[in-house]
């Protein structure tokens, strides 16, 4: 899929509902600790570029999660030999993720029930 235009990429984060970015970040980090840039790349690849996250918007989200103790950050040297700030998910973060995912699934279920064509 070709890159979206600039204006589209601006619109897309607003289309994400609150908490969605958080869930994706936590989910990603649970599998493997990562630094910010890698996180953005990972999310874009995994979503097969369906989701375009404004790269910078990741950081306020990460700060919020740091403050709430959902993730931990640590300066490290990456495999590519650069100084990076690695984020790891905390046990509280995992719990939060489980709760949010199940909430999200229920919501999705509800929405799809409403959207499903009436069977009569």
């Amino acid at each position, binding site marked *: 899929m070709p890159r979206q235009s600039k204006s589209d*990429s601006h619109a897309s984060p607003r289309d994400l509902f609150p908490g969605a970015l958080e869930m994706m970040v936590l989910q990603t980090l649970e599998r493997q600790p990562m630094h910010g840039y890698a996180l953005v790349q990972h999310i874009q690849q995994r979503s097969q570029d369906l989701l375009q996250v404004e790269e910078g918007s990741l950081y306020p989200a990460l700060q919020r999660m740091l403050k709430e103790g959902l993730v931990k950050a640590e300066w490290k040297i990456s495999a590519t030999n650069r100084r990076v*700030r690695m984020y790891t998910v905390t046990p509280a973060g995992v719990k939060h993720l489980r709760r949010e995912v199940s909430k999200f699934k229920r919501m999705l279920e509800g929405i799809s029930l409403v959207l499903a064509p009436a069977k009569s």
Partner: protein
Amino acid sequence: MNPLHRLWKRRAMMDDLSDEIELHLSEKIEALVAEGMSRDEAVHAARRAFGNATLLEERGREFWMWPWIENLWADLKFTARQLRKSPGFTLTSGMTLALGIGATTAIFSLFLQVLLHSMPVQDPQSLVLLRATGASSGSLSSYGDSSYYFSVPMFRDLQRQAGKVFQSMAASGPFPGTMRTGETSVTLVGAFVTGDFFNTLGLRPALGRLIGPADDRVAGSNPVAVLSYSEWQQGFGGSRAVLNRTIDINAHPFTIVGVTPPGFTGLDPKMPNQLFVPMSMEPVIPTHDRSWLLRHDALWINIVARLQPGMTAKRAEVELNPLWYALRKSELPLFGNTPSFSRAFMTTHLFVERGMQGLPFQARQLGTKVELLMAMALLVLLIACVNLGNLLLVRGTIRAKEIGVRAALGASRGRLIAWVLIEGWVIAALGGTIGVGVGLLVERPLTFGLLQQTPIASNLGVDLLVFGAALMLLTGFLSCLPSMLLTTRPDLTRVLHESTTQSSKGGGRLRLAFTAVQITLSFVLLVGACLLARSLYNLRNVDLGLKTDHLIKFETDVRGAGITLEQTPATMEQIAAEIRRQPGIASVGYASVGILSGDRTGSNITIAGYKPREGEDMVPDQNSVSSEFFSTFGIPLLTGRVFTDADELALHKVAVVNEVFAAHYFGGAQKALGRIFCFGSGNGHVPDTRIVGVVRSTESVTVGEKPLSTIYLPFGQRKRQSATFYIRTALPPKQVFEEVRRTVRWVNPGLPIDSLGTFADQINGDIATPHLLAMLSISFGFLAILLAGIGMYGVLAYSITQRTREIGIRIALGASRMKVTKLVVQQVATSGVIAAACGVPISLVLTRYLHDELFHVTYHDPWSFAVAGLVTFLAIAVAAYFPVRRSVSVDPVRALRAE
């Protein structure tokens, strides 16, 4: 992460974020370059993809900020700037509070030590002290005073039967003695304690072990001793090597087995014990000639007990008294005494008192003094608060326009109040820090001055800091209260329109009222100070009936030197003779009971041909003295003769009595001569001692107490194991001290020399407490009037600045300068009249509480009131002088042009 930690870390977090974003961008740029983009293009593309870096960074930071803290910080910075801009105001207000808070903190430390600081015991709430008193408590005690109530057999009886109310009971009895370690001998007060003593109190040793039940089983078999912590520190340098060391107590070897926890010196805070030995050792080193361990009539111990869980002191008292009476009844026949004694004995009531602070009597006595000081300090603090409140109010009025502008720009009232409050707290913190610092500095000397003992070693510093912080918050709040109420709701239209030099009228009356309050309170404090100062003057100039100048004294005790009671008079006489032989010594006398030392001894007497009235006190004081005692002290002989050396050899039993004794029992000095009496009462006591002389009465127990009826006996006839020597000499004291040390060591190296010093110093020491009390109250009084003066000056200076225009117009319109002066003076006079009208009655009510501290002064002493009034008047006059002069010198032309 806790909030404080987080606040600390905030800066680091923010720096991390900036770094991180920077690194993110550079990584992206590299990736784009690797994809084949030019570096310039890559930089732009990366920034585009990232979004607004600054904004995002800012948003990321916000998570770490707390709006109210940021606000507070801004307010603090603003306040600090404002205060720096007016250093005069800051200094005055800061110092005002520093004085108030400093005084209060220092006194609070005393308060803590005397009233709140309990003994270092476990669960003091469940500890009680027993006391048994009745109609004539004192005469029942084997010691001269009335604070020892029980005999050891009484204790054992009670202990056996009081298991229902007490978990455990323990007793301690003091004994005077000497302790010899190696070459040095010292006198001390030790305590015999029962085996349960330390367990009952729940004390843990600082070193080694404490005395336990096993030490107290078999009489005379456990010569072990426990040192008090302070004795361990002072006498043994806190060395751990004291354990298992052998010391001689009253010439018997004891082994040191442990040290008590710090701060513990036995049950009686006024008679601290340096040493504790098992009660079972009493027969080995008896306090008196015979052991008191089994005697029912020797009342010399105190009992402490721990209540059973759920038992209150009141209930314990109710439950114990029937038992107490039953025990008394069974015990009475053992005494074989007179009916009046029996009645006194049987009417005693057993009191169960909370035992947290050692003996309640002393705590009460010192407590009232400390409470007095605390009240004075709080008054000073209140004045300081009112003063600062006034200053802040003036400041608020000056800044009415500024506040108005803020309000007009949308500052909420809460925000304005916060702003005022922060200013108050900053000033309070400023003054309070200085004050608490000063308070901590003077705590030690003050404690020593009043309690005559080094402060209890504990973490008092923390308590004081907490107290100081609380005071700061409170005073800051109180001082701001008037400003918060009055200046934070500005009438916008008026404030913004009016010029700054026209004052709002409303605050003026309030400020004047505040000034009046300050003057009133200062006057009250000054009255108290004057009363205490006069009392001190009286105490200093009281006629003791003694010549106290050029006297040197020291105490010694033969118990540690292996000298028997029989040999004691010879030893004492030898010491006196050796000292007398030195050139420059006028005379040397000695007595078994130190003069004005606070000690007294007495026993029952029977006088031939004298029938005591019902309940009459037949227990005069007695003192065994040498023949030169009277001339050394300059006590005049009224009739008959004093002792001769022949009397000292005890050929005939003779006595000299004082005038009070002669007047009380015989109605005059002459009538007393030749009368015969003996010690003891009841059958079998035959009068055998002839009164050969009558001397003038002297104050003998403490300075300021009435002379007591006293019998003097030749030391050789009524032997005692310790004596106080008095040396009359014109030589410099230092030289004599050396002489004394050398002589006594020469006579017997085992004799201790205790409290060697001049008699004048001893008297100064006696009145140290009233002296300190008077000095402190005078300081408080002057502090108060100083603050009130500053307050008065501030208010007047302000109001005159405000009224410059008005005054200018008046003068321009032809008012005489006199008339203008009158305007200001009227303001001052109003405050003065209000202060006088309130101050005198308030003082009359409050000075009543001083009654116990006053010596030969009534609480409504007119002179003290007059002096206080005069000082107050002078202070107001000085404070008012400069503003008034300024008002008179207002130049109408300039005042009018100033607008």
